[in-house]
């Protein structure tokens, strides 16, 4: 059984995070490896396809809802206060599932299936679900190429001859990958938060010609402002998942994952998909 970390203690979640084994979390070398993974995953140059997405910003600009840095930041705050909750919890849950049940491939696959279905249920727009799976494929291609050995634990065909990580939503892939790479759930949730607010903000730089330094300042404020709550949610989610997995035979219930969404994001995804002249994939 894996220790999911001190629940509620957001200050020390990296070292107490869900590792692949119990000893790794106390190992300084392992921690620094996890830090390097974290830096790479959030680097804009990491080839996971992020440059092609605007997370609804292109549509918001088209509608005239976002016209400058202040309105772009307001758009990103909307994401940080709604979608980020489920993103943090799904990411943390996937990381915990992988770390806890990785010796039982069939069980891991079933759990990731159910987490994937829960993610579907939280995305009202079909185009948004499609984009989320596309992002999952692109993340998976990148992390498998960069860290082939740890990722191979879930790459090999499972008992039913299926790929445990293929075809999943983006957050499930990010969660599972961070779990395999020894990144703790709180740090994994920070990655999710950074992606959630960074994707539309960096797209706004290209769409509106915003000052990149001022935009980076806004991203820093957004992440700093929302990180504590997102990390707390992730630690609780990891703990909740680990507890439920620890009871043999008990069906895993994900209903506690946040249902908070932003309806305008779903509407934007629908409108964006129908447009002919669009530059971004979302």
């Amino acid at each position, binding site marked *: 059984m894996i220790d999911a970390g001190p629940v509620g203690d957001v200050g020390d979640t990296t070292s107490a995070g869900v590792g692949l084994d119990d000893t790794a979390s106390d190992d300084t070398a392992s921690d620094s490896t996890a830090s390097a993974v974290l830096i790479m995953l959030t680097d804009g*140059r990491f*080839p*996971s*396809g*992020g*440059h*092609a*997405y*605007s997370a609804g910003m292109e549509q918001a600009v088209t509608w005239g809802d976002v016209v400058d840095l202040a309105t772009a930041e307001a758009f990103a705050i909307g994401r940080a206060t709604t979608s980020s909750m489920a993103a943090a919890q799904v990411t943390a849950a996937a990381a915990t599932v992988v770390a806890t049940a990785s010796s039982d491939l069939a069980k891991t696959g079933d759990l990731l299936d159910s987490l994937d279905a829960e993610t579907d249920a939280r995305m009202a727009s079909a185009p948004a679900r499609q984009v989320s799976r*596309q992002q999952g*494929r*692109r993340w998976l*291609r*990148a992390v498998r190429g960069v860290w082939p050995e740890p990722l191979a634990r879930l790459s090999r065909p499972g008992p039913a001859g299926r790929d445990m990580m293929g075809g999943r939503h983006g957050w499930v892939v990010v969660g599972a990958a961070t779990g395999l790479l020894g990144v703790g759930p709180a740090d994994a949730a920070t990655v999710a938060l950074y992606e959630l607010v960074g994707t539309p903000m960096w*797209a706004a730089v*290209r*769409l509106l010609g915003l000052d990149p330094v001022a935009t980076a300042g806004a991203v820093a404020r957004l992440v700093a402002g929302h990180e504590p709550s997102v990390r707390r949610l992730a630690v609780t989610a990891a703990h909740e998942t680990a507890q439920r997995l620890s009871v043999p035979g008990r069906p895993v219930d994900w209903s506690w994952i946040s249902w908070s969404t932003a309806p305008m994001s779903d509407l934007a995804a629908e409108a964006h998909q129908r447009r*002919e*002249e*669009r*530059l*971004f*994939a979302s």
Partner: protein
Amino acid sequence: MHRDVVVDGDRAVGLTGGGPSGSPSPEGRAFRVGIGGPVGSGKTALVAALCAELKDVVSLGVVTNDIYTTEDADTLRRLGVLDAERIKAVRTGCCPHTAIRDDIGANLEAVEELDELVGEDGLVLVESGGDNLTATFSYGLIDKQIFVLDVAGGDKVARKGGPGVTRSDLLVVNKVDLAPLVGADVERMLSDAVAVRGGRPVLATTVRCGDGVDAVAGWVMAVRQAARC
């Protein structure tokens, strides 16, 4: 009229392999050729002409990366050179060079989807969005790349160089018929290009009239054949 200025595939750049070390082996999948170059130089026209020239010779697929991606795909579909399902459009989020060089996942996804249709003996052309002279393809995405310039873009462009001009596997100088109208010195442009390319081939074309397309198609088929030996 077209001129084969240098078509010497046996030079150091070679016909075999796929560019620098670490490039993928084309074994078991279609051969991939990237076509890049500045806006308006004739990339889409060249892709359409190559499809028309080669469609009875080899199984073909095309990926387009235009900023308004469906535009090029629609042009190709309208020309009827390929079935619609063999043309894929990739959205690049205002970063055409990123999508072909630094973060190639979306394009890899598109070429892999085409692989199933095209078959392992086929040919997939990947057309970049119009970009600048530094925009080249990653050899993680393609096996060989063609860079397309046109004389109307200025005859100094070849001398200025940049990775597209100096490092591409084939440089095509297009619209040579316009040279007298725009005051361009084609001979100078071609000799400048040859000088900066270290023996890599250069071809002069007027794709709109079909001039030189057969030579480009011949080069494509030759490098594809050589990669299979």
